[in-house]
């Protein structure tokens, strides 16, 4: 993959291509989330669990979740009374991993306590700055997507919110002057 342009500071590398990170065996308790039924995600989780099982005494809390919503519920339950020393591992699409990251950070986890195993990067959430609706679509960074709220064509700006996991979208031609039409507008 080409190196990230300088403006991509908030775009995790694992949202540009699938990356499977290694578990951090220094943690004492590990919440392991498989999001979606993708066999690739299941394989990542199986590898992780094998590594963790071989590590010094750690507690593993595995969850196989149908979708991101279910994963966030499982995560919230695990982190409710979690102590420092906890780690979160999430396998699934980049979109699901971003959603889990946002919830984990909100619960007090740090980036270095999160391990992702990304199986696909095709779908992105794009938050519209004009109407605050969120589009969810197969679109590349700096591509264009239609806003489901206000129908504007949104540029997928290379900024990813840590808080929501969505990309920033704004009207793609917002800074272009309208074509001169002869008649007064």
């Amino acid at each position, binding site marked *: 993959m080409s190196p990230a342009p300088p403006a991509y500071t908030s775009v995790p590398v694992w949202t540009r291509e699938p990356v499977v990170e290694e578990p951090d065996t*220094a943690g004492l*308790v590990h919440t392991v989330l498989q999001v979606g039924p993708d066999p690739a995600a299941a394989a990542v989780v199986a590898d992780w669990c094998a590594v963790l099982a071989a590590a010094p005494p750690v507690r593993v809390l595995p969850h196989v979740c149908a979708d991101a919503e279910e994963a966030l519920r499982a995560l919230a339950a695990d982190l409710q*009374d979690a*102590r*420092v*020393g906890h780690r979160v591992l999430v396998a699934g699409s980049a979109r699901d991993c971003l959603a889990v990251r946002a919830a984990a950070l909100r619960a*007090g*986890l740090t980036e270095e*306590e999160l391990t992702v195993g990304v199986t696909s990067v095709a779908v992105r959430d794009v938050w519209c700055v004009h109407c605050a609706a969120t589009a969810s679509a197969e679109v590349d960074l700096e591509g264009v997507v239609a806003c489901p709220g206000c129908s504007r064509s949104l540029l997928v700006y290379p900024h990813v919110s840590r808080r929501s996991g969505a990309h920033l979208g704004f009207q793609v031609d917002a800074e272009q002057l309208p074509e001169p039409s002869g008649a007064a507008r």
Partner: protein
Amino acid sequence: MSPARISLVVTEVTELVPGVRGLALAATDGAPLPSYPPGAHLVLDVPAGDGRPRALANAYSLTGENVEPLEYRVSVLRCDPATGAAGGSAWVHALEVGDKVEAHPPRSLFAPVRHASRHLLVGAGIGITPLLSHLRSHARWGAEAELLYLCREGLGAHVEDLAALAGESVTVLHDRAAFTALLRERLRDQPLGTHLYTCGPTGFMDLVHLEAADAGWPAGRLHAEAFGTADLDPGEPFTVSVDGEELAVPAGVSLLEALEEAGHEVANLCRQGVCGECRVGVGPGSGPVLHRDLYLTDEDKAAGDCLMACVSRAEPTDDRPAHLEVIL
């Protein structure tokens, strides 16, 4: 190069506990002093003379009010020059009310992480001073905090101040084994979102970091205020080329001192590898560098294009003597 000094006058001296002197310093015109973040320190100019071969710049953690203070408060442990100390703290202990002191404005290298949901403060001996400043801030803002303080009985400065600020969240211990046992227990019972701050002798902070790692704490949650690089050896002599000139740096003399003695001006502050002020460039004609600072990251060191002149030195290789090409 160096930031402007502020002129202070000693307004109060007290012996807090045997060997530790509390100092209050006000602006010479009585005006409010610059505010500072909790955990910041003041760098005092210690003049040469009286057994000190050169002027020193000694950093002391600020312990008092941090918002538009009318005085800066520091607590200084006397380290005996007879046992190898540089003499800065002995100079502080000789100050009297009314004496004038020059200082750099406060510098912050150890501020609380504001998005942390809780703060675990772990200090030993005179290392309690920046943590007192943290605790003062947490008490004011209603932030959750817990403090563990290891000190010798009767010799722990600020024990009453800490208790007045945070009562039952403060535990003072005088026994290292009991302290380690409690630390181990407390490290395993901190809500997610807690950050840890430690200050004390190097060996103590190493213990805290080791125990924290054992309890699964990642490095990003650990914050330390270094006293400085403990007990560096005098090092081997080496040579330096700078501006077409060749200098010899004998053992026991730092690169910074050698450059200054040759008439080069190098911005500097702590002179112990902590502050990052005296970073100098290193050219391609240099041999390997023996980095001994606490400032440069591993990536900086790997790049091999700079060093901290106050503590780091040149290393010889099998086929050439120790040499640096310094770019100022």
